């Protein structure tokens, strides 16, 4: 009995040592990441972006654009969750994936409320346009606008918590004002506390 206890203790200590708190690198989208109950984790952003890109590419909407590759502008992504997030964690991943696919490019000189992601490029495009007798706007105008919303739904039962983060995106054809593609990805997490790995 004593031997069993001793072995168990040694085993536990070995396990604890293996899971020690030393910092290490983990795959940002892999199952060794921390799963939190009340936050959108890096793997959640990756998963939502990946699923939305897959669905957008599979829809064929971008293939039907008159201009190839399609030109997108990023509009408002409303954050209705309880946490402060940078929605670029979603939109940038989508932009990069679409850019790499060759199906779409994103303008950095057209933004919400006249603000540009790249003010220098916007000013230069305006200058070039003015100099060549244009109306001073310059740059390629986007054919599509990407907008969306992040929503959090929270519920508890006893000590078990459940949080759902809903990622909603719409792609609007600017010429018609119609949402030609829409998607919603729900990510639900249930548990009592944060955990390492899933």
């Amino acid at each position, binding site marked *: 009995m004593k031997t069993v206890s001793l072995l168990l203790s040694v085993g536990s200590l070995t396990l604890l040592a293996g899971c020690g708190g030393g910092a290490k690198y983990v*795959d*940002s*989208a*892999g*199952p060794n990441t921390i799963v939190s109950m009340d936050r959108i984790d890096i*793997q959640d952003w*990756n*998963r939502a*972006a*990946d*699923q939305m*890109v*897959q669905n957008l*590419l*599979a829809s*064929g909407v971008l*293939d039907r654009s008159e201009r190839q590759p399609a030109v997108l502008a990023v509009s408002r992504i409303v954050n209705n969750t309880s946490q402060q997030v940078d929605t670029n964690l979603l939109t940038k*991943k989508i932009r*990069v*994936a679409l850019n*790499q*696919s*060759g199906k779409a490019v994103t303008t950095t000189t057209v933004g919400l409320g006249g603000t540009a992601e790249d003010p220098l490029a916007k000013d230069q495009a305006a200058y070039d346009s003015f100099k060549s007798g244009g109306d001073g706007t310059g740059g390629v105008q986007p054919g599509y606008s990407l907008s969306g919303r992040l929503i959090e739904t929270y519920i508890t039962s006893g000590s078990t918590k459940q949080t759902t983060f809903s990622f909603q995106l719409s792609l609007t054809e600017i010429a018609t004002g119609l949402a030609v593609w829409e998607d919603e990805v729900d990510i639900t997490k249930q548990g009592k506390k944060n955990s390492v790995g*899933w």
Partner: protein
Amino acid sequence: MKTLSSLSLLLVLLIAAGCSSSPVNTIDKKNPNATPTIVDSRVNIYDNNLAKRLSLVSVNEAQVGDLLQVQVTFQNVQVKPRTFAYQFQWVQQNGMVVTSPTPVWTPSHVEGGQTVSVSAVAPKPSVVDFRISLREID
């Protein structure tokens, strides 16, 4: 001591019963109209338990515009529900793997006896092949 053991066993059984869900029965068409393009596949097994639980049913592919779309279908051949994660990798004509801006292990839940299909679209037209990795996560 015996009573304690019995109580512990009962508790474990109760917890297991509370957390488990029933397996599913499935009905589909005897002669389906769908005519998928089935792809010959090879499987490298390092997790024998996962291979015993999750059986590969089929791999089929299609074209979405100029992009390759792949669907892999599995069946949980046991009664207990399982959660696994999968990840697609995409290979170009020259054999190089495409680096994804959103590399992701996607979790998927499958009830006992249930058949699930996971699908993905290649990230760029130059992709000609794929591989899918699976791991059990519970």
